């Protein structure tokens, strides 16, 4: 505890506060721009932190991380384009609110949910550091596979209008995820003899195509002067806070727990956190039909989960040297470069640095609330810009973002083709089901591959894949998620007739 207070005092030094503020502004901008992610921003900044004090460097990286994950919601809400993969479920309710002229309501909700979720994750990090670290490695590849299957059941939530098409789109997403090198033995697949295909279809350019490009086409087709009517609603903060305090406590708590838990699992990532949190929010709500039409609860679920993920992802990174998210991997690289080895001894040997970092995450979230408030006034002005300027600007930014991932022309081609595909064929279901397949497919495939290898050694697929306590729980949950609604519907229909 003493170390934590010392860390807090270091984090509150004016120099650190200035750096954090800079990091937060940069993070929000980067998060908002489609294609530029917190992972990229931190990776580019790591070399600069070599010349800083280790704690100072970490404070800066942590601030960018928190703000970057939050920033993704801005473009998701205002433009229907997720700024980061983890905010793609935010589009589902954020954008409908914008279309209704309530953009500021959605933006404030996402800011509050992000900050509160972020703080929740850090508090869990402080309180349950050691036991959760142990738990994170107990989650084997078989469990990852079933977690992905459970995540795939969210398809029913994401496609209410045309379920058959939604399932097909999801399957196509899964299929696209298998292009490239096999995760198990490194052999190329579905490359059709075209060499660059070996690198596979990267997630970010694909998401940019499906969301950003398709949205640009949509805006051009709709041919309206503005994206949505912009109204500054009076007393919006009070009404949002009031609504969240009255109606969203359970959603917030559940989503933050889901987000933190998914963060603890190495390699799962923020996108899965927000998908599962959104799905659960809808499942347990008394009025699931309002989701997708601009439900505040939907934004709360998605945004609190992805920011809570940060605290969770720090747990295996700091205690075991296993990064729970791509940004955590970058930050870990920064630690190593300073000669600090994450792991069991980190809190003992470099406790000052570690606790400064943890405390700075708390401070960053509070700064995010203040800076985010002012930035929000600025970003909402996007709606005052005519579509004629927005569409080309998004097109240029998307192209830069997709290309800069790997400097690969293939990514641009993939972005364009998927954008056209989503525009022509997915206008009624939206790109979310296909994105679901793309996000979960590669993780599920790798997990299944590893599990089957282990099954070969143990001589039993059942034992390696199915007959494990957590696996069984996830299987039952998946079956209930699919069969439950159908059964319930039958039962209720009988009651009516």
């Amino acid at each position: 505890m003493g170390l934590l207070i010392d860390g807090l005092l270091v984090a509150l030094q004016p120099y650190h506060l200035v750096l954090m503020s800079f990091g937060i502004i940069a993070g929000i901008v980067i998060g908002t721009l489609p294609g530029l992610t917190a992972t990229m921003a931190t990776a580019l900044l790591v070399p600069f932190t070599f010349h800083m004090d280790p704690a100072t460097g970490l404070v800066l990286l942590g601030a960018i991380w928190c703000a970057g994950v939050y920033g993704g919601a801005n473009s998701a809400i205002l433009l229907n384009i997720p700024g980061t993969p983890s905010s793609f479920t935010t589009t589902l309710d954020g954008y409908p609110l914008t279309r209704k002229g309530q953009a500021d309501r959605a933006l404030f909700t996402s800011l509050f949910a992000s900050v509160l979720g972020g703080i929740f994750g850090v508090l869990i990090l402080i309180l349950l550091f050691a036991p959760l670290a142990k738990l994170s490695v107990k989650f084997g590849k078989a469990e990852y596979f079933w977690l992905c299957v459970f995540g795939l059941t969210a398809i029913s939530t994401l496609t209410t209008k045309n379920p058959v098409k939604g399932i097909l789109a999801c399957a196509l997403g899964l299929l696209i995820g298998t292009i490239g090198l096999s995760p198990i033995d490194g052999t190329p697949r579905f490359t059709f003899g075209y060499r660059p295909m070996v690198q596979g279809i990267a997630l970010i350019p694909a998401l940019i195509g499906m969301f950003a490009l398709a949205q640009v086409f949509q805006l051009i087709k709709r041919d309206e002067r503005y994206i949505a009517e912009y109204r500054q609603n009076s007393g919006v903060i009070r009404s949002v806070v009031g609504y969240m305090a009255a109606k969203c406590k359970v959603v917030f708590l559940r989503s933050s727990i889901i987000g933190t838990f998914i963060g603890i699992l190495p390699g799962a990532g923020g996108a899965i956190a927000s998908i599962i949190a959104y799905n659960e929010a809808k499942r347990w709500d008394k009025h699931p039909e309002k989701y997708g039409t601009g439900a505040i609860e939907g934004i709360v679920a998605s945004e609190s989960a992805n920011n809570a993920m940060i605290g969770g992802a720090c747990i295996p990174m700091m205690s075991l040297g296993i990064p729970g998210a791509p940004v955590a991997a970058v930050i870990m690289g920064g630690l190593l470069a300073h000669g600090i080895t994450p792991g069991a001894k980190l809190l003992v040997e470099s406790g000052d640095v570690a606790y400064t970092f943890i405390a700075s995450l708390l401070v960053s979230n509070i700064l995010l609330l203040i800076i985010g408030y002012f930035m929000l006034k600025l970003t909402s002005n996007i709606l005052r810009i005519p579509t004629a300027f927005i569409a080309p600007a998004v097109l240029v930014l998307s192209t830069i973002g997709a290309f800069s991932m790997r400097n690969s022309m293939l990514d641009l081609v993939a972005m364009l083709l998927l954008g056209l595909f989503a525009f022509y064929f997915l206008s009624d279901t939206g790109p979310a089901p296909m994105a679901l397949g793309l996000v979960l497919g590669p993780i599920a495939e790798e997990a299944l591959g590893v599990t089957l290898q282990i099954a070969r050694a143990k001589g039993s697929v059942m034992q390696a894949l199915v007959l494990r306590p957590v696996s069984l729980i996830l299987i039952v949950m998946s079956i209930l998620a699919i069969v439950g609604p159908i059964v319930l519907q039958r039962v209720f229909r009988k009651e009516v007739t």
Partner: protein
Amino acid sequence: MKKLLMLLIAIALMMPVFTEGSQETGTEEQYPEENVTVIVPYNAGGGSDTITRLIDNYLEEYLGKNLNFVYRAGAGGAVGISELAKSKADAYTIAASNLPHIALQSLLGSGDFDTDDFDFICQMAVTYPIFVTPKNSPYKDLASFIAAAKKSPGSLTIGLPGAAGNTLIGFGQFMDEADIDCTLINYSGGSDMLAAVLGSQIDAAFSAINMTMSNIDDMNLLAVAFTERDEKIPDVPTFSELGFKVSCPTSRIYLAPAGLPGERLQILEDAFRKVYDNPSYAEAAAKAAFISNWMGHDELEAFVDDLRPQAAKYIEKYYSK
């Protein structure tokens, strides 16, 4: 007016032709006349990028020029190296790379190149795996692991941190040398595999030294898969001390397209060597957890020649079921 504009544009478009011509006439002694482009076939901020940037800090002193960084990530480095293979052999484009990865990639077909397509400049650093078992494992030393593997062939699992990497060679050597049969489990990254070891999901693993150090108290270190012991864990024997010729380092190397003109390969090798010998570089590299280990051009070519048949053999044995 329009015609004049067209003419100006035409002239502007022809400019690159002239500049290209003047470059060709550059005389040999002056290499390098401009900065050398280095392809980093991974993301910015990764290990290859970090060490290359460290080298770049000192290279200007010895080469007279700096490096321009180009990132071409994808397919475990194969994308960037494929691009190098297509580049002009003028020593103005080189790449950072890893052995044995590029040898394996050329054999598996994930890279559009062959190891013969390159002139190897040097090796600046190595990293190597430690053979580990989970803390609660009954196998606390190599002998007991081998005994158990002999008793029930195929039933023990050994994790590798990635497909087609150095540990495939180490795994193959170990199976051959100890005359045992285990099942290899390919993870998609070192941290994934580390989680599997800590959670006792697998029986043993080849875990990279840096990642192992983070959790040194939470697993049993059985043997070092390198020719020398590691100074951070001096009590852990090497495989060869225990009687098995298993050594599978990852070499951080620099290479160029084959057939560099004149002395350029030598100039590059000398410059890298001087960086390697600079004590302040060595200190910075050690601080960033790189294990400095030099191999010059000739030594490296011989190393690759020795590696290729082994790589081919183990790919055939373990990846074509």
